C-alpha cells in the first residue's frame, strides 16, 4: 500500500493542541478527530492507501489530546485498521511517534 495523503497537524489543525473532549475547551482531541482526521482516515480506508501523519512542529502532545483523538478512534475501529492505514513521523521528537502508536495499541477504555 502506498502513501497517498499527508496530514500535517501543525499546519492543518493547530500547533497548540488542547485536552480530550470538546467540552474541555478549544483544540481538543475530539475536535481534531471529528472535524479533520476521521474524514481523511475513512477515505484512506475506502480507497486503500496510507496517510502519513506528520507530528512535527507541535508544541506538545498532552496525553489527554492523544487519548481523545487517536485513542478514541482506535477504540471505535480497532487498532489493526489504524495501524494498517496510518504512518507517523516527527522530525523534532520521534518519541511522539511511539506515544501515539502506543495509544492506538493500548487505548484507554471509555466510560462504560
Amino acid at each position, binding site marked *: 500500500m502506498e502513501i497517498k495523503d499527508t496530514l500535517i497537524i501543525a499546519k492543518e489543525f493547530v500547533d497548540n493542541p488542547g485536552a480530550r473532549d470538546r467540552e474541555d*475547551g478549544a*483544540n481538543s482531541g475530539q475536535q481534531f478527530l471529528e472535524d479533520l482526521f476521521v474524514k481523511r482516515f475513512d477515505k484512506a480506508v475506502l480507497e486503500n492507501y496510507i496517510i502519513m501523519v506528520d507530528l512535527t512542529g507541535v508544541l506538545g502532545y498532552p*496525553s489527554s489530546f492523544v487519548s481523545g483523538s487517536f485513542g478514541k478512534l482506535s477504540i471505535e475501529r480497532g487498532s489493526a485498521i489504524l495501524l494498517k492505514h496510518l504512518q507517523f513521523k516527527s522530525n523534532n521528537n520521534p518519541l511522539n511517534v511511539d506515544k501515539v502508536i502506543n495509544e492506538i495499541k493500548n487505548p484507554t477504555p471509555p466510560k462504560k
Partner: protein
Amino acid sequence: MKKLYTTSKFKRLNTKRSLDAIKKNRKRKNKHGSFKPANNARPSGGMYNRQHYTPPPIVPIIAPTNFSLIYNTEETLNYFHKAHKELKNKNRILFDISGVTTLTTDAIALQIAKIKDARFHLNSGILGNAPTDETLKNLFSQSGFYEYVNTRGVKPVNNKKLLIHEITNNKVEPDKAKEAYLLGLRHTFQNEEIFEPLYNILIEIMQNTNNHAGATRGKYDWWLHVYNHPDSFKTSYTFLDLGVGIFESLPVQSFKRDFLELLGLKSNLELVPKLFAGEIKSRTARPERGKGIPQVYECSQHKAFETFFLISNDIYANLKTGENKIIKTQFNGTLFYWELNNK
C-alpha cells in the same frame, strides 16, 4: 385657577388623597424602622441616619515575614485562614504585607486568587498595602498584582502582563498555555524552540482543574502566573485553583473508599506515589482519565525544571526530590509551582 379646583367635591377628594398619601408614607417608614441590619451590614436609609452607622472594623492581617507558600507553607496558609475568618465575621480586612522580607510569586498569585474568589471575600471589603522593601515592592508591582485590584491614585506601571487568567470559562485554554509557554521560553532559553514538557504540563494541569477541582466539571477558575526573574534566566510558574483539592477530588475519594483499608493506607501521604505513578483509578470516575498527573510528574523530571512542587489539601510534594510531607494547615485547592532554568 380652573373652576374644577374650587369645587367642594374636588377639595374633598384632594384632602382624602393627601391623607392616604401621608398614611402610606408613615406605614413605609415604620416598616424601615423595624428593620434590623444583619451584623454590620449598612442599613439602606429610612429611620437610620448616617451618624448612627458604624462601618465594620478593619482588621489588619499581617503577612509572615517570609511570605511564600512554597518555602513557608504553614504560616502563609494561616495568614489566609485568619483573613477568611475575619471576613466570615463580616469584618473588613487589610492584607498587610508591608513588613515582608522574603516574597515569592506563588504567594502573590494566591493572594490575587483569594481576593478575586467570591467564596473567600464574601463581598466584604479587602484592603491591602505593598512591601516597604524597595526590591520586594518592585517585584510586587511587576507581578501584575495591581492589574487585578482597585487602587487609589495612579496604578504602578507594569509593562509586562505576567498574570494570565481573566475569565477562562473554567476550561482548558491552549492559547493561554501557549502564551505562558512562550513567555518562559523567550526568557529562559532565549529562543522559541519547541520544549514539549512545559506545554504538556500546562495543558494537563488545566485539564486536572477542569475535571477534578469540584464535583461539577469546570466549576472553578484557575490562575496562572508567570514571572521572568530580571536578574537571571529563571522563570517561575504558579498554577492554582481554589477547588476541592486533588486528594478530596472524586476519583481520589473513590479510590480511597475502595482501596484504603485493603491496601492498609493510612493517610494521603501514602497516596502521593500512587498518584504520580497513575495507579489511582476509580470505579466511578471516567477510566480514560487519570493520565494527566502522571504525565505532569514525568515531565517535571526534565532537568530544565529546577524545582517543582505540588500543594493540595494536606499534602506538600516536592516532585524533584520525592520528599513529600503532611501540612497541618489545610489548603483547599491545588497549587503547582515550578521554576524553569537553563543551567
